[in-house]
């Protein structure tokens, strides 16, 4: 009875994900909406990078959060909402691309340079539209799962442990895949970072 009479605690920017997940699991719709608002930008950008199509990314974003809502009871680690929902998003994207998650790892050795790639000068980097276009193209040539792992790490800040759990890979495999993706990304970008050897 006391629980029924207790007023809900306000949700704010400082409310941790863990608390929001617990409250959403208890049926508070506003808590789930707060989780959505906090992470939708990341999820949508992640899906756009994987699917390379804005409309498809919108649909996949909605599907990802709908699945997250339906499966929220299963999330035992309440502070891991972001890696969890990104893992769901990755599955949604792979289904959309008809890529099976249990396929063997992508073999892209022929595209991975062994030599040291000349480094840029980040201080003088001009982030114009042209460079961003080349950056997006460089990301696009990576295989879907290697790209997903790289994005989870570099763009969304997930730990190697979270990525390994999401993919069902070992941590050394995750590090190796991200390293290979990085080398290929750098090789694709280097010609467009002219004047910054």
């Amino acid at each position, binding site marked *: 009875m006391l629980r029924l009479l207790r007023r809900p605690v306000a949700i704010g920017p400082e409310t941790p994900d863990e608390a929001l997940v617990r409250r959403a699991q208890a*049926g508070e*719709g506003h808590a*789930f*909406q707060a989780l*959505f*608002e906090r992470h*939708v*930008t990341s999820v*949508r*950008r992640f899906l*756009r990078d994987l699917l390379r199509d804005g409309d498809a990314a*919108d649909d996949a*974003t*909605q599907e990802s*959060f*709908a699945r997250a*809502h339906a499966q929220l009871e299963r999330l035992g680690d309440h502070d891991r909402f972001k890696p969890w929902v990104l893992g769901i998003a990755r599955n949604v994207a792979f289904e959309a691309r008809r890529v099976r998650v249990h396929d063997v790892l992508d073999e892209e050795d022929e595209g991975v340079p062994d030599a*040291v*790639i000349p*480094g*840029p*000068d*980040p201080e003088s*980097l001009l*982030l114009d539209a042209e*460079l*961003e276009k080349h*950056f997006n193209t460089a990301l696009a040539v990576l295989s879907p799962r290697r790209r997903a792992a790289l994005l989870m790490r*570099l*763009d969304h*800040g997930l730990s190697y442990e979270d990525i390994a759990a999401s993919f069902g890979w070992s941590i050394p495999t995750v590090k190796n895949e991200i390293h290979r993706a*990085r080398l290929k*990304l*750098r090789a694709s*970008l280097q010609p467009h*970072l002219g004047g910054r050897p």
Partner: protein
Amino acid sequence: MTCGKPGLLEALTRSELTATTAAEVEAHASTCARCRHELNWLRTERALFRARAGRDEVSHLWQGIAARTAPAPRPWKQLAFALAASALALLSVQQLLQARPTVNVAQTAESEPLSSEPIESTDPTACSRLPEGLGFRCTMSLSDDALASR
């Protein structure tokens, strides 16, 4: 110090090191070409990714999700309500049956008796449906059981 430990350089770009360790890594990278090269790439990657962040228009996406995540009525609540309504309906029917008036139809003294016992009917409209002029005396009364239940 960081040569062979690329994780330290990455941790530096992610602001995960203490101030003291960060200063040591920075100092080393300034004198080590290999680490400086790696650090430049890590910072470039970070700058490129951060430049794209936050540009996506996402405000329209919640409507579609809200429609799919609306809380469904809890089945046990529906079941409890249905059971309570059924019980209430059964109780009402029972009360009505017990309280139904009994109609006693008897012949008047002038006519030839058909039976020594009054005719009982559970039809509350029996009196109004009897034809007039035949000498029947029709009264409505509650049975003892019905009275007791009230």
